[in-house]
């Protein structure tokens, strides 16, 4: 419309056009808000990245890994930790501890797809009573709905009854990280908020067959700290597990081989997928723990490529025998 025509516009038309323009802007704003992608494209610049501290404790010769036989998880985990110097070696008065169980699925505790709730509760109790921890958090970012997973697995209730604060993942708890020297974990969200509060982290995982990775144990357990559409990591599962083990340097890991999921993992579904092995492992070296764990699955260390890859990356030792496991 020409300038001369604009000058001839009357007040009613001006108001009508103004109202139309305002409606258009409002509609555009609503559409923009609806379509706004909070996470942004994957190729966005790496800004505001977080990194995880080293949570490990100083090594002690002959007290790196312990293997205890027995059917009672409470007794075996107590003995396994005591063999490494007691929980006092790992948790000091006033410490803030994150316990990371495997709570990936909405399955009953007896099916062995998730960490045994009584085991989690016992470690929480040890942290408070003997370690005199200030706070113990229990958290995981499950594959299924978090609330249902913590409820059905029994971990939520057991941990809370033992005095832990159970943290269910929320969007704002995730921050992006990049593993130094990593190829896969780049600019990727991790469940950072609970870890930022803590100075110790203890991983507790069951021994399970895993149709993609071969086995799911303490190293694979850190997968539960990843956010985003993490299924992409299954494309190169060995490197993913290796990088997770490089990313998280834990204070202690506990590998529960009391009842081992021998087949149809990681979900299982039938009690017949489980076999009693009555073994509990506590270790400062997650590679050594998993190297021993694979023997419970009747596998060899070479069957799990990520073990030697992690060893090569300096995460730990596959030759657990050289670490002189206590009680073995």
């Amino acid at each position, binding site marked *: 419309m020409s300038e001369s025509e604009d000058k001839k*516009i009357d007040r009613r038309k001006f108001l009508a056009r103004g109202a139309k323009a305002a409606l258009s802007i409002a509609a555009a704003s609503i559409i923009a808000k609806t379509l706004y992608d909070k996470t942004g494209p994957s190729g966005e610049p790496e800004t505001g990245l977080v990194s995880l501290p080293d949570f490990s404790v100083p090594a002690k010769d002959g007290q790196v890994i312990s293997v205890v036989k027995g059917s009672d998880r409470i007794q075996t985990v107590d003995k396994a930790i005591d063999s490494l110097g007691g929980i006092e070696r790992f948790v000091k008065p006033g410490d803030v501890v994150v316990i990371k169980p495997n709570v990936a699925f909405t399955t009953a505790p007896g099916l062995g797809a998730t960490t045994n709730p009584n085991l989690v509760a016992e470690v929480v109790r040890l942290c408070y009573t003997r370690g005199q921890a200030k706070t113990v958090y229990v958290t995981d970012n499950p594959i299924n709905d978090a609330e249902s997973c913590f409820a059905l697995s029994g971990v939520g209730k057991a941990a809370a009854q033992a005095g832990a604060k159970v943290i269910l993942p929320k969007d704002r708890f995730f921050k992006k990280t990049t593993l130094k020297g990593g190829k896969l974990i780049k600019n990727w969200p991790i469940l950072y908020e609970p870890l930022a509060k803590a100075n110790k982290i203890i991983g507790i995982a069951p021994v399970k067959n895993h149709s993609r990775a071969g086995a*799911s144990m303490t190293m694979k357990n850190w997968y539960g700290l990843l956010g985003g559409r993490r299924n992409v990591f*299954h494309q190169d599962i060995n490197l993913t597990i290796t990088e997770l083990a490089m990313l998280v340097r834990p204070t202690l890991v506990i590998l529960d081989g009391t009842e081992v999921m021998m087949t149809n993992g990681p979900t299982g579904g039938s009690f017949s997928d489980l076999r009693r092995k009555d073994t509990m492992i506590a270790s400062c070296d997650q590679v050594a723990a998993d190297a021993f764990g694979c023997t419970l699955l009747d596998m060899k260390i070479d069957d799990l490529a990520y073990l030697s890859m992690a060893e090569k990356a300096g995460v730990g030792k596959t030759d657990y025998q050289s670490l002189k496991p206590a009680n073995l």
Partner: protein
Amino acid sequence: MSSNKIPRYESIISAGVILLLCGIAAAIILPQFSQQTSGQTQNTSEPAAGESIENILSQLSPKGFSAVSKAAVYDADTLYEKIDGRAPLYTESGFEKLFTRLYKSDSNEIVTFEIFVYGMAKPENALAVYSQQKRDDAEDLTDFDFGYQTSNAIFCSLGKYYLEIIGSAQSAELVKSMTESAVAIKAALPSGGAIKTEEMVILQKAGAEAGTIKFSTDNTFSCKELTNIFSAEIKVDGKPATIYLSKRTDEKEAIALADAYAKFLARIGATEKKIALPAESARCFDEFGPIEVVFNNGNFLAGVHEAADMELAAKAAKMLNEVLKGAN
């Protein structure tokens, strides 16, 4: 007033711009809408088969149990959110959609069972994932062609659907409720869950034991060339033997496949044995103890897998070949 009339060309341009914007908006919104409907959603427009499964689950009312939530639906992109590392087992075997629903006991809320209905592209795909995961302690369900129970779970192959019902405890009462649910699901399926291929008919005529027919899409007996193989257990003079069968496009393909398997056996160190066999093309291999027979009859690849001795292998091959004579 005529001077305020908007020129026609401006209206055309404006209409063009609006159409373009609508096109862009549709291109953005429609794919997102499509992704949202594939996740855990209800009240969405699934294909007819999907709708029927959702309806079946929503109308299912197991005695003494109540549904905890509405039916959830997962597609190939979101399957990992439910079963994590086990997803490739399905996605690599013609997976289309998974429907799940959780039920809890009205008298004891920790007693639950969850129904998983995996929609596969073809009945053979459902049978393949069923066969692959069949538990050793399986107790066949008499109401199903392909169905078994363990102490806490029900597993069935129903036409193009693979059904799992997972209970939280080892309880006869719970298994009874789950079996009733499986029967109700089977009855509600349009085809009643029936599956019958030519190979299955032949295997049954050859004496296949009830509930032993299996199907493997690839890498059968660790040989990557052996694809789409049906197998079954038979009894020869009271001794167990495994026979296998696969209908190929033509005789030439069947001969080539038999040759490929013979070469595979030789490659892994098996020794070829000269014994009297029912078919001219048949070859026999001693695989460090277990005996293999492979042959073709017309466009069928056939054989005996890991028989205890050569006599048993030859008799089993003869039984199968006799039935095949009538089939070609």
